[in-house]
């Protein structure tokens, strides 16, 4: 018997598929709801060799705004409400080593992960 583990941010839905040629087992884990079909995918931001903002999504706003917010979060240790383009942000844990940010302003929303 061999045992492996997949660490997930929360108890997310999953499915298992058997694939062939070569024989494989695929385990799919659903994205957290905040990322499933939400907004437009924007390019992630590398600020410096140590910091990275990933999984950036923007709804009803531009990717440049989303990247500005993520960049500020990395540089300043987290945007305060109204600090970047007027967006209010809050963060929550996303697994053991990352934070998920959700920022909004007048219906526009930006989300991203900060690892």
């Amino acid at each position, binding site marked *: *018997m*061999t*045992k*492996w*583990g*997949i*660490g*997930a*941010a*929360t*108890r*997310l*839905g*999953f*499915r*298992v598929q*058997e*694939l062939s*040629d*070569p*024989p*494989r*087992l*695929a*385990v*799919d*884990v*659903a*994205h*957290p709801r905040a*990322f*499933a*079909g939400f907004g437009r*995918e924007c*390019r*992630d931001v*590398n600020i410096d060799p140590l910091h*990275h903002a*990933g*999984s950036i999504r923007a709804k009803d706003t531009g990717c440049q705004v989303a990247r500005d917010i993520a960049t500020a979060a990395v540089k300043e240790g987290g945007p305060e409400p109204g600090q970047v383009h007027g967006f209010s942000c809050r963060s929550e*844990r*996303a*697994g*053991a*080593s*990352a934070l998920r940010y959700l920022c909004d302003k007048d219906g526009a929303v930006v989300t991203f*992960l900060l*690892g």
Partner: protein
Amino acid sequence: MVTLASCGDGGGQTAPGDERPTENGSPTATTTPPGDAEGTTTPGGTAPRQDGEPAPPIGAAKESGQGTTQRTARLADVRVGRHATFDRAVFEFRGGRPAYEVSYDQLDEPGSGRRVEIPGDQSLEIIFRNGQTLRSYDGRTTLRPDLPAIAAVKFAAASRR
């Protein structure tokens, strides 16, 4: 951070009977090209695959399946990829696919029951067995992709049960 593991066909560097993979953490491990519709993509800084595959159903029930061989199935590669609405971990074998069980459970070592720490608040336990020893995966034993759903994929333990 991009984290993918590739180990080719396993290389046969593990001594027979030695089931515990070697922790090498080699930074040279890179992408294994997807061979078909599996859709494994580069996680992290690139756009997810827009493949139209539906997200996994919202459910956490145990899943299991029978193996395709009674011979020894050898784990040849483990990799992860990001899709539009889900992340995928792929376990690739040589010599057939072993029986498996997948469920949310605390990750522990069989026998001792010692807990195995893994990044993330929840852990999916994947058990491979088909009545014969599953030889070891010869590459990295921990993958830490930057993905929305999968925080890590980690080898936990092997036994002769």
